């Protein structure tokens, strides 16, 4: 076993993060805050991206975002690791965000 101070610090650090309750906490945060961020960016993206009347696009975005928020919560607890839960929610969120900004800059 490696006994350098660095490694033992690292392994302690690692074992701390391996605790199951931390995984649950992390997934819960991903589901609640990540899920809301996903819903918010989805609503924004639909509002500017859909090729229909502006008001209708805004409403469509909201109606879809609610369902997406619930799906994000399912994903957060269904996937294998807490890291995957975050990645799976934050990547589409980032894509929606970037898409919204690009379309706004283009408009």
């Amino acid at each position, binding site marked *: 076993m490696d006994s350098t101070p660095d490694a033992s610090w690292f392994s302690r650090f690692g074992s701390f993060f391996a605790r199951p309750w931390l*995984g*649950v906490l992390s*997934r819960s945060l991903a589901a609640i805050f990540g899920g809301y961020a996903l*819903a*918010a*960016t989805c*609503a*924004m993206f*639909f*509002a*500017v991206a859909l090729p*229909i*009347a*502006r*008001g*209708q*696009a*805004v*409403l*469509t*975005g*909201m*109606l879809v*975002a*609610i*369902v997406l*928020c*619930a799906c994000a*919560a*399912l994903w957060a*607890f*269904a*996937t*294998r690791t807490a890291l995957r839960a975050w990645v799976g929610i934050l990547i589409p969120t980032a894509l929606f965000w970037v898409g*919204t900004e690009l379309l*706004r800059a283009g408009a």
Partner: protein
Amino acid sequence: MKNGFRQSMAWLHTWTGLLVGWLLLLIFMAGTASYYREEISRWMRPELPRSTVSNEVAAERAIAFLQHKAPQAESWNVTLPDPRNPAMRMFWRNPESMVKPPAEGEKRRRRGGGRFGDATVDPGTGEEVAARETRGGDFFYRLHFDLHYIPVYWARYLVGFCAMFMLVAIITGVITHKKIFKDFFTFRKDKGLRSWLDFHNVSAVMALPYHAMITYTGIVTLMFMYLPWGVNVAYPKDEDAFFSEAFARLADIETPSEGTATVLPIQQLLDAARAEWKGAQVSGFTLYHPGAANAVIDVYQRDGKRLSVDTPSLRYDAVSGALIEASPLSGGATQTRGVMYGLHLARFADWGLRALFFLSGLIGCLMVASGVVLWAVKERPKHAKSGKIGFGLRLVDALNIGAVAGLPIAFAAYFWGNRLLPVQMAERADAEVNVFFYAWGAALLAAFLWPKRLMWAWQLYVGAAMFLLIPVINALTTHAHLGVTLRNGDWVLAGFDLMMVAFGAVLAYCALRMQRWQPALSAAEKKKRQVAAAAAAKAQESAHAEANA
């Protein structure tokens, strides 16, 4: 997260359901009661007349009343009587110059800064009705999404948060079920945990489309508050433009012109609207600038058979009678939202459909209640093994008793308060609401002090007695009791009293079951008893044989 997808979802179902279960039960019960909001309001104001004049006569009397009461007002709004609510509600907007600053020591700020006046008028006489001060069924309607005692803004976020948990619990609940169709027909009686699970399944699956619909549409009703981001992006700094664009509203009202003119008879204007709608009924109207030369009237169509809450409206020149504008046809997404909103409120439902909605709501309450109880039943054997009830289970037990058995007590207490508080009391409507929360607080406190099985029975008995006594108290304090209402065929008031008796009877039955309940036997225990019984029978038989020999 767990070893398999289904296990993960079962775990998620358990915890999303449990964490918000008690608040969700309050929301569900208040929402279910709100289906009969008008009927409850009527029962809680027994002084209200039961008049049956036509809408034309009612509208004429409304105009006469307003001309006398608020001649200077900028606009008059009138909701005409309908079969569910025989009184006319109206409010008017006073010009800014007429608004007095609130009097010294006036505690409550009037709504709209004192610019609005309102009255409830008997269409039979055209006089303001003098009914006791109460919030009636409106209290449950507000409680459903505004809760109470906390700022409305926070309450709505909290309710939305609970609704999202509920939506997740419903989806995960469906995923958890391998045999959703079979479970629908399965109920194993008197089997402890199994029975609770079966009951939870049956109540959930039986009204599943309703539960999913009501939860999603509930979030839709407040989605502009929860998700303002799309509006912010598409209409930067101009929210109003979004609402007028998306909701196809009538144009803004112009300022009143100089000079005076007489408004056409209201009957003629309403007839014109009905003809335009090919006979559809009018639910109410707003008259802007009564008396000015450019007075206009907006006429609103009654919900009737349409699912959507967005009802068509027409604007007429109130002096010449010319049609100025009709509400334009709205877009697909607007109509979808309107139907979602409409499904949640169920204003379109006639008495049969309304009863079905109410029944589904009650089943929803039972689903939530059986869910939180199920958690405790499942957890108990673990604690029993160690011989000590842990903090978590004790907490859940107390909250279960205080919510499932305590909330009915609070509902009944609210109705008691309506009949027993002095009619002329100051701040009476608030006092009634306080009675609701005092009663609930007492039930919760008792549950926390002694969260045992007999506490279940006692609280259920108290709730049963309080519901059963409501018609009695009603008969002692008013002239609108069963003896009168049944004879007159007033089914709204009679139905209310009879429903209270039915609730009381059901609660009493539950209390009796709780009191007599015996712990279910484990399989090993059962076998042991069977063996013992068989041995005893054998011994008896051989004793018989010996005696005969």
